[in-house]
C-alpha cells in the first residue's frame, strides 16, 4: 500500500492528466481520495483547472489574418522554376 507521501508525490505528478480526464478509474479514485485530505493537492486541482480554463478561454486572436505576402516567396520560387520547385 502506498504511503501518504507516495500518494502526494504521485498526485502532484498527475494533476494535468486528472483535469483532462485522462486518468483511469482507479487512478482517479486514488487522487480523489488523497485530495480530500491534502490541502496542497486540492488547491493544485483547482488552480490547474483554472489555468487550463483561462488559457482556453482567452483566445482573442480571432480577428487576426495571415499577411497578404504569405505566398510571395513561393511565387518567386515557382516563377524561377528549379531549384525551388517540388520536383527539384
Amino acid at each position, binding site marked *: 500500500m502506498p504511503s501518504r507521501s507516495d500518494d502526494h508525490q504521485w498526485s502532484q*505528478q498527475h*494533476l*494535468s*492528466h486528472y483535469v483532462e480526464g*485522462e486518468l483511469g478509474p482507479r487512478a482517479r479514485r486514488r487522487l480523489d481520495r488523497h485530495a480530500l485530505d491534502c490541502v496542497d493537492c486540492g*488547491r*493544485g486541482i*483547482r*488552480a*490547474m*483547472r*483554472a*489555468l*487550463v*480554463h*483561462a*488559457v*482556453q*478561454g*482567452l*483566445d*482573442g*486572436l*480571432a*480577428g*487576426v*489574418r*495571415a*499577411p497578404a*505576402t*504569405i*505566398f*510571395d*516567396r*513561393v*511565387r518567386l*520560387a*515557382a516563377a524561377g522554376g528549379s531549384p*525551388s*520547385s*517540388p*520536383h*527539384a
Partner: protein
Amino acid sequence: MPPLAGQRAPGPAGTEASLIARAQAGDVGAFERLSGAYADRLFMLLLRLLGDRGEAEDVAQEVMLRAWRGIGRFRGQSSYFTWLYRIAVNEANRVLEKRGRRPAAVPIGADELQLPAPAADDPARQAENSELRRALGRALAGLPPALRTAIVLRDVEGLSTQQAAEIAGVSQAAFKSRLHQARLRVRAAIGDETLVTTGG
C-alpha cells in the same frame, strides 16, 4: 483530422487530396489554395510562438516556401494540416534558437495586437481578464520553446493530444509530460490564488 474552428477547408471543387496531387505536380495555384485554407491559423500559431508580428510574417513566408519545396515528399502519412503545422513549429523554434532569445510576451488576446477587444458586461471583470492575459503571455514567453509549443498547441490552439504530439514530433507520453511541466511552470509564475480567483 476533424475540422477545426476558424479553418476554411478546400471546397468540393478542389478536395484536399486533389489539390495536394496538383501541387505536387507543380501547380502553384493549387498549393496556394491548399495551404491558404490554413494560413490564418498558422499565422496565429507563429504569433504565439514568436511573440512578434514582423517576425511571424517573415517566418510564415518561410514556412510556405519550405512546404512548397517539400510537398513532393508529402506522402499523406499525417494530415496536410499536421504536416504544415509541424514545419511551422520547427521553423519557429529554429529561429528562436538561432537568435538565442525568447519573446518578451506571447500574444494571447486582442489587446496585445491592438485589435478591438470583445465587449464585456462587467468592466472590473474585463480588467481582471486583461491582467490575467498579460500574466499568461509573460509566463508563456518565459517557457523553453518545447514547453511553450506544448501548451500553445494543446491549450491555446485546442488540438488533441495526438495531433499536438504529432506536430511536436514526440510520442504522446512525451508530449503529456511536456504539457504537464509547462502547466506547472505557468501555474507557479502566475500563482494559485490569482488563477483561482480570476481564471476559474
